[in-house]
């Protein structure tokens, strides 16, 4: 499956490069449209409890997972629909899970926050902040010496949890093949992360001598390049790496949060919107022109599967 194989952009033919670009772009648009649909169903009372949408952060999940192999393992967060779809989970089965149906990927037992799909490498999405860090660290322990890696996605808020400090140290001293991906969307639930976080996030893994970088999490190719480097480090047996991907969520924290605490005008400047590519690193291939200007509604993959969802 393209996008789940560790191909290197630039090493491909132009046709393959276009194909890769389109596949990754489709996944990003699929996630956005899926989340729009979930939101609509939520407002209709079809999705139960609470749900946390990934809208705006798509480039992080799609960029990182695009360099993984099928035997690698990924742990996501309760904002995890994007992680699941990026790994190739069937959107209809994911949506059915959110609706609490037996046809859901976990037969309706997991719901929005705790989706598991081992077939696609998703160890789980974790409803308690920081839980994904533990899961991937343990996976790293199991994957030592195999050439496979574990990836943890987590938010900026998780960097103040015990899991973060304990597990990063554990992985470093045990030299485990883990890539820690912090999706810094600026807010821990309703509170700006700067108000509750001492110092910078990146200083923390650096203090443990874990290779780390902060980057533009809305730029697919920047994310992908950094992820490839981190994954290759882990595959070689050279231990964990850390990526802080700066991004933004276009929606509130959860169903009960309209996001009123965010200043006017903040939203358009941060976070990813179709069409992809906001800066100098956008791909110089035909795919870019093909996609440009096809904002919401673009991408043949975006409607696949989800059209049957509304009951």
């Amino acid at each position, binding site marked *: 499956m393209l996008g789940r194989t560790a191909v290197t952009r630039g090493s491909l033919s132009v046709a393959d490069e276009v194909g890769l670009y389109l596949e990754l772009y489709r996944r990003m648009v699929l996630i956005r449209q899926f989340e729009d649909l979930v939101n609509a169903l939520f407002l209709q009372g079809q999705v139960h409890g609470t749900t946390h949408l990934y809208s705006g952060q798509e480039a992080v999940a799609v960029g990182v997972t695009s360099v993984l192999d099928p035997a690698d*393992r990924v*742990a996501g967060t309760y904002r995890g629909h994007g992680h699941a779809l990026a790994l190739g989970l069937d959107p209809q089965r994911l949506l059915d899970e959110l609706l609490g149906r037996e046809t859901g*990927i*976990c*037969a309706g*037992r*997991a719901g929005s926050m*705790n989706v*598991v*799909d*081992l077939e696609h490498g998703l*160890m*789980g999405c*974790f*409803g*308690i902040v920081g*839980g994904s*860090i*533990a*899961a*991937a*660290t*343990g*996976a*790293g*322990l*199991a*994957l030592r010496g195999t050439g496979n890696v*574990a990836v943890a996605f987590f938010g900026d808020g998780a960097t103040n949890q*015990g*899991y973060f400090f*304990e*597990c990063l*140290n*554990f992985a470093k*001293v*045990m030299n485990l093949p883990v890539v820690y991906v912090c999706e810094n969307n600026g807010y821990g639930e309703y509170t700006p992360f700067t108000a509750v976080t001492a110092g910078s996030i990146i200083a923390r893994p650096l203090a443990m001598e874990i290779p780390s970088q902060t980057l533009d999490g809305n730029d697919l190719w920047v994310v992908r390049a950094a992820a490839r480097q981190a994954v290759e480090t882990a595959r070689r047996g050279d231990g964990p790496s850390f990526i802080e991907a700066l991004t933004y969520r276009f929606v509130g924290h959860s169903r009960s949060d309209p996001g009123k605490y965010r200043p006017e005008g903040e939203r358009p400047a941060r976070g990813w919107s179709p069409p992809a590519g906001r800066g100098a690193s956008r791909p110089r291939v035909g795919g870019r022109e093909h996609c440009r200007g096809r904002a919401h509604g673009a991408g043949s993959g975006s409607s696949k599967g989800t059209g049957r969802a509304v009951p």
Partner: protein
Amino acid sequence: MAEIEFRRAIRDALDEELARDESVIFFGEDVAKAGGVFAVTPGLWEKYPDRVLDTPISELALAGAAFGSAVCGKRPVFEIMFGDFLPLTMDSLVNQSAKYWYISNEQASIPLVVRSAIGAGGRFGAIHSQTPISWFLGVPGLKIVCPATPADAKGLLKSAIRDPNPVLFLEHKRLYGLKGEVNGDLTPIGKGAVVREGDDITVVGAMKSVHDALAAAGKLVEHSVEAEVIDLRTLRPMDIDLVLESVAKTSRLVVVEEGPRTGGWAAEVVARVSEAALDQLDDIWRITTADAPIPYSPTLEDAFLPAPDVIVESILAHRRK
């Protein structure tokens, strides 16, 4: 058959399971090169250097690493040095490991074992002496195993490692030096044992309190009381059928728990037997520790615990009622 110490039985179980199954890994603080602070695991690291690992003092990371590695096919055993430190593992054990089989719609189970030294009488004070059972008793998806003899320590640990579910394996500190015969059989999880037969009263215990109950039963003979003593061996799941069989004969039940009175496992035994056999009961009660922190002073600590004399006095007092 040679007698071996309780701690040696645990070590032998680990050794045999590490040899038997390549997916078994064992880790914790000071367990590898140092052989464990209670000298339970010497020599294992030398035999299995890639699978017996010293870790940082990071209980939450240990529990998380066990969970994540179990998802990926390992059978991790990890040691939490004192049971009092188990609260540091709670999120991973309770919310990740215990739920995973259900939440994932049975895509994978979590075959991990947490070994932990528990219990009072060692002069360790209020936060190195507790019995943490009630903190975990109400967690569906978790098993709680509590051996009282070297044979069951070995047999239950081997069963726990082979079990597909997360298992909390508790080792009472005052049993580590206890010697007994060990034949190497597996002890099934969820099955208690009648360790002394009698017709007059059923005394249920676990771990150290089994031995206290047996000592009490010996003294009660002088008072013409023949006590039946049951070792529950596993507290979740709990072998209530065995207790009910005994109570059908004796009509009297006392449960001896080294642990706080409120919300303890003894309360659970009393509740289940009362629900199932109220019409067969002439008397039913608990002997527990007080709802108070464990004292540090040796004199006070000894007075705090349900020793054999306390059990004898309580049973005689109930007979006089």
